[in-house]
């Protein structure tokens, strides 16, 4: 692709192509979800992985072709990566406490109780939906 900042160049065709690609990707992420829903298949893993893989690709397309981040000064991209890295640090530091309900010599009884009751209610309700693990 040529430099979108070149003066007076019209890139609308290119942008429309990207937009079509984005819509196609959206459909791709929907297909497994619809199949799972219609056929009552227990393929939550596939559904979730496809959906997030597609989300990352879509985000990349928007960042590269709409925001032109790849031809911006390098430090802008690094700034965003740093911010994302801080969020990973945050989740990494917090998840042993919040995501898990037990650890080395501790248990979170309240959270466990809520999960147990929720799972029981789900069984009793008979939603027939695949459980997510």
């Amino acid at each position: 692709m040529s430099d979108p900042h070149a003066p007076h160049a019209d890139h609308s065709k290119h942008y429309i192509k990207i937009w079509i690609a984005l819509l196609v990707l959206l459909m791709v992420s929907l297909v497994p979800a619809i199949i799972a829903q219609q056929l009552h298949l227990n393929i939550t893993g596939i559904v979730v992985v496809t959906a997030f893989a597609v989300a990352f690709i879509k985000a990349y397309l928007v960042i590269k072709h709409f925001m032109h981040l790849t031809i911006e000064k390098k430090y802008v991209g690094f700034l965003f990566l740093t911010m994302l890295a801080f969020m990973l640090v945050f989740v990494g530091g917090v998840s042993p406490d919040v995501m898990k309900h037990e650890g080395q010599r501790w248990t979170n009884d309240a959270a466990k109780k809520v999960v147990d009751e929720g799972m029981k209610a789900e069984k009793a309700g008979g939603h027939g939906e695949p459980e997510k693990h």
Partner: protein
Amino acid sequence: MSSSAFPRPIATTRSATGISTGKLAVWWLIASEIVIFGGVLGSYIMHRIGHPEWASQAEHTNTWLGAFNTIVLLSSSLSAVLAHNAAEMKDGKKAAKFLWFTILGAATFLVVKSFEWTHEINAGLTITSHTFWSFYYTAAGIHGLHVLVGGIIMAVIAVDAAKGKDLQRVEAVGLYWHFVDIVWIFLFPLLYISK
């Protein structure tokens, strides 16, 4: 109404980095927004993985409306970048036209959202009914607020751009809009597909 009634300081006209001042500020704004959304989405993801029973709540979200809104936002992003394209070619009128399309997208998004929420609230799925729904309304609400603010700012810029004024702002607001779009790209699988 004209912003030239407020002459800018020399500082605003300088550009030691080579990035124009407005664009640079938007990059920093996006950086600070990343951690705001990171906080709420990170908290949601941790809770969601720690609470398998939330799946029975998540199945009530309307995937079709979510997908429709994704299309709306992706298309509004397209018109935002087309507005930028027009602004690069110094065509203020065309840039303004595309910005109004983007604003139309923002409005559609919000209308669909309020329809969806009304439906869910009437079905008893309120923000207090379950912590899944608390996260659902909070995350989507913060995002919706960004859509609303973006729409208003774009309207202001579109009025100026139509007069051929401050065309560099079209790109800056576009960057913000693409960011809002990207947040939704991740909200969609988080709230509507992971069931």
